[in-house]
């Protein structure tokens, strides 16, 4: 399979995502320039972390209108796999490909620290390599990671198993102390109803080598490779080439 990692003006973690996928996992990955509408036949699009467009107006608000996002939206609607990490998650919410929005951290501080998250849905193309309820240690580095949505949306997300990752303490308990940014329901990552679009605030691409502190994040990428191999591409195959 092939991966595409988008670079917007201000994206920071695009190269780290490429490194994790191409170098560590050994899965071919290419860079996708934000002005290029061609997705070059990739099977999974990654929207990376960073400060696209300087976070001007709102995080991800301007990036969502980059030319490449028209193609990403079509690709997602046709069932293509899209992974949004941190700023990428913000872009997905602004683009309406995921519900809700990420706002300023409750404590107002930018937080750069490892957190514990629990895999609350291991039946997605992005988490099938984890055990249900598995607790991971992933770093967060964000100032606007507080997930909010109205009550109806939150209830919907919970009912349909769309909360994929949740902030927990070391023993797996959901608590306010374990919540670094005030996210409602301790949401760290969600997917859409069809499970092909996944956004998360923590950075799995930084935790892919035991030598550098841990590899809990690697299995998100491994999951995608497995899902792709298992034939998830039947939905994407129906999309016209050059989408």
């Amino acid at each position, binding site marked *: 399979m092939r991966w595409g990692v988008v670079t917007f003006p201000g994206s920071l973690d695009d190269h780290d995502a490429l490194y994790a996928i191409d170098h560590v996992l050994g899965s071919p990955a290419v860079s996708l320039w934000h002005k290029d509408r061609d997705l070059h036949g990739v099977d999974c699009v990654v929207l990376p972390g960073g400060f696209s467009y300087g976070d001007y*107006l*709102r995080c991800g*608000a301007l990036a969502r*209108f980059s030319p490449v996002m028209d193609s990403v939206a079509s690709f997602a609607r046709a069932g293509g796999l899209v992974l949004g990490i941190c700023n990428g998650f913000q872009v997905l*919410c*602004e683009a309406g490909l995921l*519900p*809700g*929005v990420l*706002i*300023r*951290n*409750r*404590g*107002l501080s930018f937080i750069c620290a490892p957190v514990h998250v629990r895999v609350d849905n291991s039946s997605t193309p992005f988490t099938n390599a984890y055990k249900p309820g598995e607790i991971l240690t992933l770093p967060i580095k964000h100032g606007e990671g*507080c997930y*909010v*949505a*109205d009550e109806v949306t939150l209830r919907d997300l919970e009912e349909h198993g769309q909360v994929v990752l949740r902030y927990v303490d070391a023993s797996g308990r959901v608590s306010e102390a374990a919540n670094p940014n*005030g996210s409602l329901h301790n949401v760290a990552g969600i997917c859409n109803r069809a499970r092909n679009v996944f956004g998360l605030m923590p950075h799995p691409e930084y935790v892919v080598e035991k030598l550098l502190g841990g590899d809990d994040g690697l299995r998100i990428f491994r999951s995608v490779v497995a899902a792709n191999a298992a034939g998830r591409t039947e939905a994407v195959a129906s999309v016209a080439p050059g989408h």
Partner: protein
Amino acid sequence: MLAKVYVTLKPGVLDPAGKAIEHSLHALGFAEVEGVRLGKYLEVRLEGQARKAAEQRVDEMCRKLLANGVIEDYRFELHE
């Protein structure tokens, strides 16, 4: 034409920045302050056009980009 756009947080949306400002005002001695909500003000200069059309266009700008409907409300004034 000039559109003055006000983007404000919907009631009930967490506003830690507003809270921080409230605390600072209290620290400065303004004990009467009971709450602060922080919003955005934008000035959008437009080529002149019929007022009705301009209102529709600015409304569309707000809905599409300037305000995030999940957490923000907007209103605007048009000045010739």
